[in-house]
């Protein structure tokens, strides 16, 4: 299958964005001046990573892309020696990230990697639980270190203690150093992110693969259902909200908690009540770390946490209070989910005819169940907890840059690359030390204004889902499970090239995320702050969902997302709640409007719009 040539796509520069390449690392560019690299890029299959990046990347946010570019690749290729694959290569066009798994082509080399892989990956699989416990310690220590990191303001006169304690270092130096520390902690955290993830996904992919070989028609969601009902901390933020709702009713402060949508009003009212103060104490216990959950995926600077936007968890608590007072059970139907999981597993297992296949099934299922908690839990630690703290530390850096006139607004900082920020900090500290004006005060604001215009144009651009030349075989586990690159998705991507008039589309196709069929009214929520508008039984249509969206699931009848596979948050939660989900539709939020009548078939992945 042939897709557009990357260099042709890139050559059609959007007018007014000429020179955009300087906003991103140079190695991300498709090139024409290097024949060898150019040939490689043409012969390679690149697909748009819409799973992670529904929008073009801001220059600073590229940090996590580089972080996983390094981490995923090194674990595949240099640490575990996955025999047939190296890493995943990255490029960028107009702010959109394109990726490609790199195969090991020489069969001899593949063979020589096998024993290493068996030894190294085998060590992790064998000692999974013990190593995962160690991981948690490392991860928590990293987050503590991040939380303790100071971003110092530059005083006109350094404190006397610098002299009396003979510190020997200035705040200017600390600012430079701590900015580096901040970035390094972020990169380290992503090193840990992938320590288990490649192997975890591999275990999951090959359990899926085995089940599909035994039962060619088995839907992927049935396979994931066999590993559902395992407790993961991803649910904990939502559990905290339920706990707080029940606590509010118990203490009789539910009225005070529900009288306003504004957290500041509610907090003030509670402080006047003795029982209210008791409830606030419970709340504060829940906030660290559970309210560090991001309201988005956590990948972007604009994904704020519950702690940053207390109205969001407040709305969730209010929903649950209402339910508790109506006598509705708000607990997740875990027992039911587990019973259904066990029934399904036993029935499929009962259809396996050969003893060795049944044994293999048990082995792979056991392995998938072992890795499942990590595959889910790492998200809370990295993308939510760590990132939420990280973004706020970066805002402190930005505030200093603003104070020194290098940027006009705190949010301007995201338009700079992290190495440009480092340069600007050098400019600031040297000017501060010297008592002159930073040169950047004249250059950066202009550049930032221009970049804002570029970003706007990038957002309006339609990124082709795939470019380059499709391979015959894909061996990289992430590519298969996470991005769902299959024959079918390639064909779908090829057909997306000729999008019909969105006003006339009556059917959308996505991945069958959670089974069941339901009809109802659509409610499009582009961000989690809009879930308050959801009415009971409506069908939630969202770009993607994350743990902070959890309270929404108590109200809705089904969920549709633009981005995500069968292991995405929306699919997992819908399976837990036993409601239909169609995920990864590509553009549901662009086509569906609030109030439309929809039919959601979570068993086939079809959404029908009644027009």
């Amino acid at each position: 299958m042939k897709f557009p040539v990357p260099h042709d796509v890139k050559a059609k520069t959007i007018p007014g964005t000429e020179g955009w390449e300087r906003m991103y690392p140079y190695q991300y560019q498709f090139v024409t001046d290097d024949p060898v690299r150019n040939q490689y890029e043409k012969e390679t299959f690149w697909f748009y990573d819409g799973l992670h990046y529904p929008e073009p990347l801001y220059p600073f946010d590229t940090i996590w892309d580089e972080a996983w570019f390094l981490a995923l690749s090194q674990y595949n290729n240099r640490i575990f020696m996955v025999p047939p694959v190296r890493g995943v290569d990255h490029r960028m066009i107009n702010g959109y990230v394109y990726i490609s798994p790199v195969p090991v082509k020489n069969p001899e080399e593949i063979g020589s990697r096998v024993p290493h892989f068996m030894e190294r990956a085998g060590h992790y699989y064998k000692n999974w639980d013990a190593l995962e416990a160690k991981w948690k310690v490392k991860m928590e220590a990293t987050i503590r270190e991040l939380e303790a990191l100071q971003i110092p303001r530059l005083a006109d006169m350094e404190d006397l203690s610098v002299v009396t304690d003979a510190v020997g270092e200035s705040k200017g130096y600390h600012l430079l150093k701590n900015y580096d520390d901040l970035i390094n902690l972020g990169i380290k955290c992503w090193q840990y992110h992938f320590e288990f993830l490649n192997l975890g996904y591999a275990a999951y992919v090959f359990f899926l693969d085995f089940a599909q070989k035994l039962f060619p028609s088995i839907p992927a969601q049935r396979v994931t259902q066999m590993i559902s009902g395992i407790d993961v901390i991803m649910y904990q933020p939502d559990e905290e909200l339920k706990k707080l709702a029940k606590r509010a009713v118990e203490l009789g402060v539910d009225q005070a908690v529900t009288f306003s949508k504004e957290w500041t009003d509610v907090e003030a009212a509670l402080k006047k009540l003795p029982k209210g103060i008791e409830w606030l104490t419970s709340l504060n216990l829940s906030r660290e770390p559970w309210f560090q959950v991001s309201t988005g995926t956590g990948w972007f600077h604009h994904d704020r946490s519950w702690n940053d936007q207390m109205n969001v968890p407040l709305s969730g608590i209010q929903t649950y209070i209402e339910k508790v007072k109506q006598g509705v059970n708000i607990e997740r139907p875990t027992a039911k989910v587990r019973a259904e999981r066990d029934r399904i597993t036993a029935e499929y297992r009962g259809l396996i005819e050969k003893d060795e296949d049944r044994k293999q099934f048990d082995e792979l299922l056991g392995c998938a169940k072992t890795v499942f908690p990590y595959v889910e839990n790492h998200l809370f630690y990295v993308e939510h907890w760590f990132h939420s703290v990280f973004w706020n530390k970066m805002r402190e850096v930005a505030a200093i840059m603003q104070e020194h006139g290098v940027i006009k607004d705190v949010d301007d900082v995201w338009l700079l690359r992290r190495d440009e920020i480092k340069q600007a900090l050098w400019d600031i500290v040297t000017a501060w030390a010297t008592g002159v004006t930073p040169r950047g005060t004249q250059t950066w604001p202009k550049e930032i204004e221009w970049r804002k215009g570029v970003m706007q144009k990038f957002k309006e651009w339609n990124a082709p889902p795939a470019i380059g030349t499709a391979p015959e075989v894909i061996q990289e586990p992430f590519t298969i499970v996470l991005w769902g690159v299959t024959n079918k998705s390639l064909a779908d991507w090829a057909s997306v090239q000729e999008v019909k008039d969105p006003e006339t589309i009556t059917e959308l196709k996505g991945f069958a995320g959670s089974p069941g069929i339901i009809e109802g009214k659509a409610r499009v929520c582009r961000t989690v702050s809009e879930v308050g508008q959801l009415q009971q039984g409506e069908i939630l249509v969202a770009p993607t969902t994350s743990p902070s969206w959890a309270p929404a699931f108590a109200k809705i009848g089904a969920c549709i997302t633009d981005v995500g596979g069968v292991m995405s948050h929306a699919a997992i939660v819908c399976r837990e709640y036993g409601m239909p989900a169609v995920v990864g539709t590509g553009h549901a939020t662009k086509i569906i409007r609030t109030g439309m009548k929809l039919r959601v078939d979570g068993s086939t992945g079809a959404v029908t719009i009644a027009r």
Partner: protein
Amino acid sequence: MGGVAEAIGRTPADRMEAAPPVVCWFEDCRKESVPLVGGKCSSLGELINAGVRVPPGFALTTEGYRRFMTGTGMDHAVRAVLAGVDTQDLDALERASAQIRAAIEAQPFSVEMEDLVAECYRKLAVRCCMPALPVAVRSSATAEDLPGASFAGQQDTYLWIRGVDDVLSHMRRCISSLYTGRAIAYRAHRGFGDAEVAISVGVQKMANSFTAGVMFTIHPANGDRSVIVIDSNFGFGESVVAGEVTPDHFVVNKITLDIIDRRISQKELCYTVDPVTQKSRAMEVPFERQRVQSLIDDEITELAWMGKQIEKHYGCPMDIEWAVDKDLPAGGNIFILQARPETVWSAKSQSAVAAAGGSAMDYILSGMLAGKKVS
């Protein structure tokens, strides 16, 4: 059944141990009843006793067949015709077959046998609250390795037969199907005497099918045991069985009963009853209905559930014929007309999917090395 014993001339003393009946209700048959009522009727009895909804009916047993052949002297007549035939000469064989079949079809049953069949037919009509009850008359062969049996079984089904005289004459047509040219040749080739073969005939209440078809409890294309595949068309199932239309096609997950795939085709013809002649015939499906789904989702789910129960009862993948009756209310209108073990995939010995070694790591490695084909 005093009447049976009388009819076959046994004394009351030995009635208890060995008096095979001439007719037999389906519900008195089990899967072990093949020598008495043939494969088709014994499987219907087995299904009824397993609690599956099957239209009621009765069988003329192999004992009835023998009584017919010997009591009327037909056995001698057949032997006489066959004695001079060269079984290598296909034309001669066909001529002999035609002569035998005409003779059988023209030969009335004895009065006693007619009475026994008529009594069963009357009781069946009373049970179904319908005078001159429309029935399906089908041959039910005893010897599964006889090709005569299998193609007789496929071809000798007479639909929408009403009144005892028509029932009797179609029973004889089923009996005569034992003497097709091909069946005679096969028996001669395999050295079976014609006296050793027997046939049973089933008389079953006709489902007034709105929709009918076949169902496999295994994917016929890939052997996947976790699905149930249903093909359906309007009217009687004959159009689907004979492959005269491209039926609607549904794939149902056997474990969850979700419909995971569906293909609605253009169905140009169906078999149904001509309201004037009261005969089954092929009719054009009205244009506006040709692309309408012939089986609704709730029926698909219920049918698949029934298929799952039948498979569980037999312990192997099954090949099932079914119908949805248009005269009965939903929830009680889906009937199983036939169920037999699936033979194609069951006969294949499939290789294991598991990796050598059998550990999770072994499989992951072999899977990685194989990769995933995408184009």
